[in-house]
């Protein structure tokens, strides 16, 4: 190739490439740069290596106060409640040294925060972003350090006089820190399966026996199956009401719940509000769960002149001691109008 020809080629090439290059940075020019304040407000994630960790501190003792007021109602005084995954328990003495929760070797081993979690930073991250459950992102950085310290203490990972801060948090050794593996096919695009089926077409097994089936008493547990299949076409849902063992012939509460899918809509029905606002986590309609049943509250304040105002305040601000030691946390996220409606409903008999 002559020198001039190759120079020409280069020019042509450059001309072809230029628009492409110009398109790339940035190609569409949409959006804007976030402000530092916007990033700071949203960028709350904390990684095990300390990336994202905020400076602050809190002690086990400080954490206990916050925990008792805002966390114990769901997680139990000692983090033992198994209504949700228990956040304490099951950690054994040797686990801290081995980094493997030996409890998990038992077929019925307790699966708790203590026996599962590998890094304490994740506990901090989750409390800060999503707890307390009905009032997320309401704890300050220091309060989050304190509650994290207390939960670690409940798991006997840090002593009672421990102060957690951005440095000590990174040094906490979790009891199950060595209990994780990423060496498996499910983590990769081209991962290889660990279990392969068998491609056999004829006489593949000698004898087929049924090893497990739904016992009769459980056949209506998900509601009447006749009401869960369209009554058209080649099959019908089986009428399973006959399996319901209730003496009065009425389906139990679980069955009723399945049969009538949650019609949780934003309408001014107090019972809908109770569900939407997670009140039912602690209060049953007619039974105590953590706090008193709504029927008990209604009967206690029946006839009291200031019942509505009193209950409204209790619902919004929480309280402790009227019904026992378990505190009711404040509900700042609950709309005033909803709280007022719920209070009115309780005064009216909670029916």
């Amino acid at each position: 190739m002559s020198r001039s020809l190759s120079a020409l080629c280069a020019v042509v090439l450059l001309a072809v490439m230029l628009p492409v290059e110009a398109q790339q940075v940035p190609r569409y020019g949409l959006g804007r740069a976030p402000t530092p304040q916007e990033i700071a407000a949203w960028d709350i994630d904390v990684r095990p290596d300390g990336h994202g960790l905020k400076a602050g501190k809190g002690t086990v003792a400080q954490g206990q106060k916050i925990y008792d007021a805002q966390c114990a109602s769901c997680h139990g005084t000692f983090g033992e409640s198994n209504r949700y995954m228990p956040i304490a328990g099951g950690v054994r003495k040797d686990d801290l040294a081995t980094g493997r929760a030996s409890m998990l070797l038992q077929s019925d081993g307790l699966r708790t925060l203590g026996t599962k979690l590998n890094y304490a930073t994740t506990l901090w991250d989750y409390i800060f972003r999503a707890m307390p459950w009905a009032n997320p992102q309401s704890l300050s950085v220091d309060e989050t350090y304190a509650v994290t310290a207390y939960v670690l203490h409940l798991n006997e990972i840090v002593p009672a006089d421990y102060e957690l801060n951005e440095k000590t948090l990174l040094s906490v050794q979790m009891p199950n820190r060595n209990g994780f593996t990423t060496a498996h096919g499910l983590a990769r695009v081209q991962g290889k399966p660990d279990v392969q089926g068998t491609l056999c077409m004829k006489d593949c097994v000698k004898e087929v026996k049924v090893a497990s089936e739904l016992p009769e008493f459980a056949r209506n547990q998900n509601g009447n199956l006749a009401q869960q299949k369209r009554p058209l076409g080649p099959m019908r849902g089986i009428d399973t009401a006959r399996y319901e063992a209730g003496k009065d012939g009425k389906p139990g509460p679980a069955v009723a719940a399945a049969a009538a899918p949650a019609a949780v809509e934003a309408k001014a029905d107090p019972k809908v509000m109770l569900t939407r606002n997670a009140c039912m986590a602690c209060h049953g309609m007619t039974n105590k769960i953590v706090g008193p049943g709504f029927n008990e509250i209604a009967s206690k304040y029946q006839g009291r002149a200031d019942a509505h105002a009193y209950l409204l305040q209790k619902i919004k601000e929480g309280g402790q001691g009227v019904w026992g030691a378990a505190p009711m946390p404040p509900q700042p996220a609950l709309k005033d109008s909803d709280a007022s409606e719920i209070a009115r409903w309780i005064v009216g008999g909670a029916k």
Partner: protein
Amino acid sequence: MKGVSAARVIAAPEDHLPEALLRLQRRNFLLSGVAASALVASAGAAAQTTSATLVPPWTRSLGAPVVTTGYGMPSKHEANVQRRQSPGLTPQPQASISFTPLQNLFGIITPSGVHFERHHSGMPEVDPQQHRLMIHGLVKRPLMLTMDDVMRFPSVSRIHFIECGANGGMEWANVAVPTVQYTHGMIACSEFTGVLLSTLLDEAGFDRAKGKFVLAEGADGSALTRTIPMEFALADVMVVYGQNGEMLRPENGYPLRLLVPGVQGVSSVKWLRRLEVGDKPWNTREESLHYIDLLPDGMHRQYSGVQEVKSVITMPSGGQRLVGKGYYEITGLAWSGRGQVKRVDVSVDGGRNWQTARLQEPVLTKALSRFRLDWNWDGAPALLQSRAVDETGHVQPNIHQLRAVRGVRSIYHNNAVQTWRVQPDGEVWNVQVA
């Protein structure tokens, strides 16, 4: 409705013809061959009166106007087709699951209104005007995008399934629930529209050398976070606003969600507000306390994303009753998080012998596929199974093959062959075979 009971179908025409027509038919039969001329007049009158009552009321009246419902709903006769919770599975409806009624669905697209739901802190009501997507971390140009911005980027539409990693999780050790809605209903398949994540990452100028992971975060009360490895992120991950021709439903992430095709649903973060490029995985709560697979040796598999090859017969299936002997079409769904389904085999004798089913086109990558097989039920007991094979040659295992490697405590990624027992009385029940 006469003739249509929960468990019985009476063959036409008695099923739908009113008594008056049956009387007329009987009368005409009696009259045939008789010198009928004398009766013509009275018969004609009878025909006139009965023809008015033989024709159903909806044919003899004016129907409702257009826009009776501005957004149409299914027929009132379809009221049984509902998402449902499984009682006792979760203590709180805000941190819970509802299941897709697979037993009632046709084809491969899940109607948006019955797409399964999984919320961790309830369903937020997000104002699309105020919603923002932030892209930052190891990028040259951090971006703050409005919905208007996101919807201006070049878009793609693709059909993919979303399956919760815990789909089938209740049945690792034994049969636990009655119908396919509860055994397999944490799956749905939709046509999604949005922007490829790679387009957005390129726009932000992400660090190709150091940027190995993307953190996705939701705008709900749980501010749910998941780590997406860059090899997945650049392959086919989408930032999605459209589902089945309309905007996402609130319960499925309105106005914006991530879609990680083929990977367990929790990674397809709903109400997506933030993407951060980083050099290491985040080990978030949903990657270290939940969505981890416990093995017999006490180790947890972490970042277990891919939903492997799987299938299930939806008709006939558990909790259904066949209305009589004779012809049935066995039909169901097959899928793989690693690509296309290549083949589905069906057994009616508990896995002893197999026949290859027909696959309905289109067979798409990381999407539900519909399979069908003709079957003549002779009234004898039967054990129905399906077994899928995907384009990588992965054969769907049975529960014993899975347990041998993963035990029974794994919760997640149960892709075992499902067995439905057909009893002589036509009832179909969920069973596991030895």
